[in-house]
């Protein structure tokens, strides 16, 4: 019924003309978009928020583009191909944060802020301390996410194109600086839209090619996997040996999505709250469809390529989807998928850099250092300096962490977003009694306890540092740090209650529903 698993004959790692061709085409098109966008980027509103002219459908695609990283495409396909059902737990986990973004965050955020999520918290509390604390959470999230993406990009490109690691990092850094520096949010949005379309198309073609071999019936594919590797591949297994690890990671993914600065920033690019609402609906559909396809891609790679052949090419299993593409469509299709994976990384780092630059320039420089007295030209200049600085920093970090196991940093970035950014945002929007002291304590503690606990966790102590044991039992600290951060925010606010800050909430209530911030 199905062909036997292939031996590891692959051209992965050899220079691939098709991959190079698609890749340079993508660079050329996106730089063309950047040139077009640069002529429309004259004000801070255009630089940070694309002039608030992005349509809901466009923003839905761009949100999907910002969110679907190479980790989700290559990592999850690889995990399913090598472990079966256990990998699918991640496919569902990466989606479930989106409804939370819609129900709690998207619309009030759009109505209350201008460019960053700190705007919302600062709109009713004291500017300086709140923005300093929010910038800490934002920059910690962005830096960790950037390291993971840059190191992934370097390794991936070396593996697929045969380029040097450092060369690959510099190319990624240069392209992303160009997009953000000249084209701001307009270019970044369109890079995301192109990337999301390519990724969804590539995954859809692969899915159809796989299903075509099984009579277009996913159950027949799963049955073939069970027949060859045992019914165990269709049930939870080794990867979820510890229940509380699974629950903790689930919490980080569910609430972290609603605290990711580069995702939150996208809601300022649409004209109003209703458009923000509709764009999450589109994004959830697109991202959900993508993760459903990872079911088929993962099991397809398991049956058609084989887990051993996949691990032989790269022990982490990350080459499952490219190997599947090569098996089904030859070198040309492998080249296309390789270029799509590269475009995926490039787009995500561009979005991250823009949100980091907004925290540095809009939150720290304009509102803390200059206390809101910077004119438009200065604001734009500082934003661009911050972009170049962050871009160079990302390249240096990527080179510094070469060869390190940084996969845990994505989970960590989600844990910080869920523990530092999400509780502060929700309490500021929905709780009258919230105070400046409570917000600052909650955000600082959320960031610091997450970093400390991940350092003491098995993820770092055992997996990275190779120590025999770890002081803290959970691999991801979200199960502890999210409730802790909410509790600290509430307790400190109650202890140091301020009447005038509760009045600020009353003024905010109207704007939260009716808008009017711009």
């Amino acid at each position, binding site marked *: 019924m199905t062909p036997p698993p292939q031996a590891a004959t692959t051209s992965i790692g050899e220079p691939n003309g098709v991959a190079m061709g698609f890749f340079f085409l993508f660079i050329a098109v996106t730089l063309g978009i950047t040139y077009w966008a640069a002529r429309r980027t004259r004000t801070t509103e255009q630089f940070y928020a694309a002039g608030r002219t992005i349509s809901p459908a466009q923003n839905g695609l761009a949100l999907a583009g910002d969110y679907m990283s190479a980790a989700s495409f290559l990592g999850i396909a690889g995990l399913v191909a090598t472990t079966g059902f256990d990998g699918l737990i991640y496919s569902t986990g990466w989606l*479930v944060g989106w409804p939370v973004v819609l129900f709690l965050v998207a619309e009030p955020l759009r109505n209350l802020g201008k460019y960053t999520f700190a705007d919302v918290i600062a709109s009713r509390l004291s500017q300086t301390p709140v923005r300093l604390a929010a910038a800490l959470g934002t920059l910690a999230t962005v830096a960790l996410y950037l390291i993971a993406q840059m190191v992934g990009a370097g390794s991936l490109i070396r593996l697929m194109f045969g380029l040097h690691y450092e060369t690959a990092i510099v190319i990624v850094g240069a392209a992303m600086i160009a997009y953000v520096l000249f084209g701001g949010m307009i270019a970044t949005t369109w890079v995301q839209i192109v990337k999301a379309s390519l990724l969804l198309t590539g995954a859809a073609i692969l899915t159809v090619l796989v299903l075509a071999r099984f009579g277009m019936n996913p*159950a027949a594919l*799963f049955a073939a996997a069970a027949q060859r590797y045992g*019914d165990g591949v269709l049930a939870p297994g080794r990867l979820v040996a510890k229940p509380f690890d699974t629950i903790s990671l689930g919490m980080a993914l569910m609430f972290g999505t609603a605290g990711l600065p580069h995702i939150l920033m996208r809601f300022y690019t649409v004209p109003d709250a209703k458009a923000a609402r509709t764009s999450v609906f589109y994004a959830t559909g697109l991202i959900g469809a993508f993760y459903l396809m990872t079911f088929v891609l993962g099991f397809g790679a398991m049956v058609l390529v084989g887990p051993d052949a996949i691990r032989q090419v790269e022990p982490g299993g990350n080459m499952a989807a490219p190997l599947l593409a090569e098996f089904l469509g030859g070198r040309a299709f492998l080249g296309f998928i390789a270029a799509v994976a590269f475009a995926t990384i490039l787009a995500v780092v561009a979005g991250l850099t823009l949100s980091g630059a907004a925290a540095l320039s809009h939150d720290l420089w304009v509102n803390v250092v200059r206390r809101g007295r910077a004119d438009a030209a200065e604001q734009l200049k500082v934003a661009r300096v911050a972009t170049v600085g962050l871009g160079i920093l990302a390249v240096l970090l990527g080179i510094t962490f070469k060869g390190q196991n940084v996969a845990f940093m994505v989970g960590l970035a989600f844990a910080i977003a869920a523990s530092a950014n999400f509780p502060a945002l929700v309490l500021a929007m929905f709780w009258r009694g919230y105070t400046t002291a409570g917000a600052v304590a909650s955000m600082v503690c959320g960031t610091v306890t997450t970093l400390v606990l991940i350092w003491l966790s098995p993820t770092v102590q055992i997996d990275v540092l190779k120590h025999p044991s770890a002081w803290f039992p959970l691999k991801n600290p979200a199960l502890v740090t999210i409730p802790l951060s909410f509790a600290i925010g509430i307790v400190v606010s109650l202890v140091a209650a301020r009447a005038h800050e509760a009045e600020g909430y009353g003024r905010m209530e109207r704007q939260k529903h009716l808008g009017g911030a711009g």
Partner: protein
Amino acid sequence: MSGPTPERDARLRTIAARRWKVALALTGAMIALYFGFIALIAFDKPLLGRLLAPGLSIGIVLGACVIVCSWLLTWVYVRWANTRYDADLRSLGQ
């Protein structure tokens, strides 16, 4: 849009309270859906491994269900907001 009056403020508070209730209920449904799935993975592995048909374990079907139901929940909210919530806010301006 006309400015705030005590009467409009009271109506806004009603709308806000209703929006908050809907948001909380749907967030609760989402949490129950996902963590229910996770709890089954953690505490009842044999159930999820049971086959409904060749190749279709309960685990795989529920996993796909979580994704589809998440999206349906966003649809439910958007339907409610586009009809009830937006209409309530519009009536506030008159």
